């Protein structure tokens, strides 16, 4: 796994101060600042444990969890006694959230259980040299790199374009004309899952490198990464790359010259203000602004001319028709039969349960009754991962197995014998897709 570029661990201690505790080999200082902002470590609440984003040519896959302090005794001391929140980020140049997300979750678990970076470093180096390592006594191997195509098409395009109806053709036009697009969503998991489908609109370019999945719109980000990317300066990392045997190479669809284009996602209210026309749009950075909450698309002032006449162009009308039809088909194909309705309800319940703290979840389980939880557990374990993926609860969970484990843990019949050192998210025993 030679393409791993680095690892960074941030901690927020009980005094409220945040530090970059450890980084291997090193992290540029501007990037450190940006990682800190994006990792929600200073936010009031951690919205999602796992997120990924990009700065210049480095993708970072970040896991942020709050450290539990109960369940320890004199025999099993607390590994991180003075720490409230830990954020572990893995840096690579390749986009594959499934693979690297798996790895970073494993590394974060190692750190949380051990409390010492050298253990994390050992796993990291072993992963780099050979594509596997040992985790909790068992061999651990992340999903292979050849599955990158699966990760590219993980979210179907109609999930992004469906709710827009006919306006989806504006998104298509924006993708083809390499515009800089800002996408707002109210929650990070929704944003990440929908934004990664955007390059499917220009699939012939095979370019996922123009994505900046989660951006906090800080000035540093804008000057160092977003503006060069949008203006197509040389060195802005928005040309496609692939992972070759010698490292990261330019992809087959890369033009020899710098190209423009940028798709960034954010959950900050600055984006809402920009869409209303209130914020400042430095140097015409954002040309198209998309709101996934209200399903509206707003064009910047100077760009409306480029989008004129779309409704008259027969090519665009055809594209709009295709997108609408696809959305209709998907809607019809969504299951109406009671089994899938059961599934949907079950996963919906799971997604509501997971963010609760353990005590609250236990209370809910107690009130719902053992039968209900058992039934839920049975349903979730019975149905396959691929079916589970349809319900888009991925980003609220670490892993599918997490839900199973969670439900199993909720079931009062399965009480763990040793103190449960798990965090608000539960870590499964075996990792793998």
């Amino acid at each position, binding site marked *: 796994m*030679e393409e791993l570029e680095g690892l960074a661990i941030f901690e927020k201690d009980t005094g409220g101060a945040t530090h970059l505790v450890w*980084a*291997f080999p*090193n992290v540029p200082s501007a990037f450190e600042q940006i990682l800190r902002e994006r990792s929600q470590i200073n936010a009031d609440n951690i919205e999602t444990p796992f997120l990924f984003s990009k700065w210049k040519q480095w993708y970072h896959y970040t896991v942020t969890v709050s450290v539990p302090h109960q369940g320890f005794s004199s025999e099993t001391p607390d590994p991180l006694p003075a720490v409230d929140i830990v954020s572990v980020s893995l840096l690579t140049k390749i986009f594959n959230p499934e693979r690297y997300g798996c790895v970073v979750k494993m590394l974060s678990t190692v750190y949380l259980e051990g409390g010492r970076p050298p253990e994390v470093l050992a796993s990291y*180096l072993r992963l780099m040299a050979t594509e596997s390592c040992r985790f909790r006594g068992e061999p651990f191997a992340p999903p292979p790199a050849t599955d990158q195509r699966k990760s590219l098409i993980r979210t179907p395009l109609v999930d992004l374009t469906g709710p827009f109806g006919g306006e989806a053709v504006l998104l298509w036009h924006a993708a083809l004309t390499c515009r800089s697009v800002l996408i707002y969503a109210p929650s990070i998991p929704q944003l990440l899952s929908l934004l990664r489908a955007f390059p499917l609109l220009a699939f012939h370019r095979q370019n996922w490198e123009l994505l900046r999945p989660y951006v906090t719109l800080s000035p540093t980000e804008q000057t160092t990464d977003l503006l060069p990317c949008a203006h197509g300066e040389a060195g802005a990392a928005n040309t496609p790359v692939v992972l070759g*045997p010698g490292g990261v190479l330019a992809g087959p669809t890369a033009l020899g010259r710098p190209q423009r284009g940028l798709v960034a996602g954010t959950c900050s209210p600055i984006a809402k203000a920009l869409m209303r026309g209130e914020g400042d749009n430095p140097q015409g950075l954002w040309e198209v602004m998309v709101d996934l909450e209200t399903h509206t698309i707003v064009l910047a002032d100077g760009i409306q001319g480029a989008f004129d006449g779309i409704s008259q162009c027969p090519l665009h009308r055809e594209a709009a028709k295709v997108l609408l039809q696809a959305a209709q088909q998907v809607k019809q194909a969504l299951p109406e039969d009671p089994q899938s309705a059961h599934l949907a309800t079950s996963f919906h319940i799971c997604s509501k349960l997971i963010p609760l703290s353990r005590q609250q979840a236990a209370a809910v389980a107690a009130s719902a009754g053992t039968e209900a939880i058992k039934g839920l557990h049975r349903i979730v374990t019975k149905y396959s991962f691929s079916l589970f993926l349809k319900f888009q609860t991925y980003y609220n969970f670490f892993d599918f197995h997490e839900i199973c484990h969670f439900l199993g843990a909720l079931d009062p019949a399965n009480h763990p014998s040793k103190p449960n050192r798990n965090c608000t998210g539960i870590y499964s025993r075996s990792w793998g897709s």
Partner: protein
Amino acid sequence: MPMVIPEVKALRASNGRFARRRADVGLCRVDFDRRNNDRVLNTHSILMAEATEVFEKIVELLVSAGYFRARIPALSPFDKVVGGMAWCITASNVDVDFDVSFQENPKIGEKIKIAENIIEGLRLSKCPLKIQPSQIQGLDYPKLYPVIQWLVKRAFEFRSAEARNIRQNAEAQFGKCFAAPAGAPAGPEELGRPFVERVLKNYFPRRAYKHKPFARLPEETVHIQTTLLEYGRQTRLTLDGAEAGAESTQRAGPSAAMQDRISAAEGEQATAARKKDAEEQAQAALAQEEQTIALLMAGMVQGEGAAEGKVSTSSVGALVTLETEAIRRAAEAYGEQMRQSEAATRQSAVAAQRQQQELLAKQLAGLQGRLEQSKQKVEAGQGRLTAAQQARAEHRARMEQLTETLERLKAAEEGADQRIVGRLHQLVRLNESFREQERRFKQHCRQQLAAWQGRIGELEAQLAAGAEDQNAAALRATLEQETQRVAQMRAALALRTREAAALSRQIDEVPTRAELIQYQTRFVELFDRMATTLEETRKHFNCPHPGHRPLLQPRPDPPSLRPHHHPPVYNALLDRKGYLTNELGQLQSLQRTFETALKSRNLQKPLLESFQTATAQVQQLAGRMEQRQADEKRRHDALEERYTGLVETQRSYFKLVKLFQEECDLNERLSNPATAAEALASLRRPRRPPQQAAAPQAPSPAPAPAPASGEADPLGGGGAPAPSPRPSPRPASRQVASPAPAPAQPPAPRPAPQPQPQPQEAEYDPLS
């Protein structure tokens, strides 16, 4: 037919003074008429008018500037515009150096190329307005118009300047050969003109002698020497650095004046060109030379004037040597005079010459300095060049080495297993990347360590300096703030809870359905109790009338008149007492009146009548009472019937509810997957034997649909597993059903739709 535009024509320089550079813009044909010193264009025929206003304006502008090709109608607008611009560029004397060959109907690419060249020309002519090639190619007239305006303006300016220059040139040229005819005043330079001309002419080579035996000169140097001597120049093969003044003392030869002149002329040359040498050497050589010269001179014929006439030298020499002595004397005298006069001029000339020498010396020094500098630069450049070449050679060598090693390694690799080789590559890469990472990590760690130690030092210093008060004060302030906030929040929370409590109290006041039902049952209970008590008490004082039954007593036997013997009750006794007193009163009155009536006959009739009326009244009263009783009875009967009907409906309702409940339970059991099987099994089992009252009804619904559909009764007499009293036909069952208001039956008055509701209730097969 469109005009074919000729190819490139160059503007040549007219003369050295007014140099125009070459401008090759091959769009317009320009002929330079040098005779008139003015530019004349070959115009063509009139242009066609074009569509747009701006284009018209552009065309007018170009035409006013002098580009008359714009008026040619057959040319394309692109041609005119671009030609006009190019012409203006040439007209403004810009050094533009490119070739553009123009063909008719250029393609877009060619147009763009031409446009780019035009823009280059504009840039070189420092045009402040910027345009794009696409604008020219696309003939964006509004954008091109200001540019063309500027160009035309510049062309005009340049042309006026040129005109001025040419006029001056013309005047100068004229003034060279001719004088102005009238009124041209001789300026101060005119007065000195002859003198200046003389001075200048002084230095023209003049042939003084002519060598007689012209063809018989032995060798070249001698030839040269003689030729030069003819012109009065003595050449000395030895270098002579003597000054003009010093020279003048060593003259030897026939004409001292000549020698003077020669030496003067030579002296300046010598000082200008040669170095100074030892004078003795020069003197010796000089003497020798003089001898040779004297010899040569002897062979020459003296004569002023350089005109080489066709007159034979001998005749001329004869003529001239006729009076050579006189001539010589006169020439000497003249020479003396000239010398005297020229001494002065020579002095000044010498001074002037000296000044010029000094000037030239300075120039020489400057040039030599520059020479030195350029030499240094050259050396430096040379040094760099050599260094670069060396480096290049080194790199080349190294590269060759590397390629060689690479090939060797590749050759070595060829033999080995490719997988292993690949793996080795990977491992080597990995190793190197690990080393690099380690290095970077160490560096980073050191930096961080330094930073952290610095921070620790700072904090310790702060601690030592007691700056923690600041921190503590800040913390205290935040604590106070937070506690205030907490108090506010608590107050708000309390308010909210109070509101919530009030609302919940209000909500609780509204009774729910369960409570209402409970109230209702309680009320009903109370009412019942009160009613029973009332009835009880009523019984005590009231006479229980047959039509007057308390409500909640159980329904008695069918309304057959039973003898009711009740003890007399208070009200009845009271009534009886009333009646008896009435009767008693009547009888007493009767008795009284009867005794008096017996005595007198007048009173008997009224007495009889009163008796009759009394009896009639009493009978009437009795009749009315009986009528009332009959009415009451009737009413009672009617109510009784209604009551029975309602009770029957209530009973049937309860029955239906019970059945419905059963069916719901069945449904629940069926929908619940755990118990579904048993429920289905229970269904398929034969039902519990129906009740006796329903027995005649239950089997009949089975054949009932069949006869309803018109079939014969298949199970009429067959061995169907139905109970035996089945074959009773429907009317019989109906008869059995209708008079019996058995509560187990559905409501009685429903003869026709009987088959339908029964399957729903009795034999419902959920699987059908």
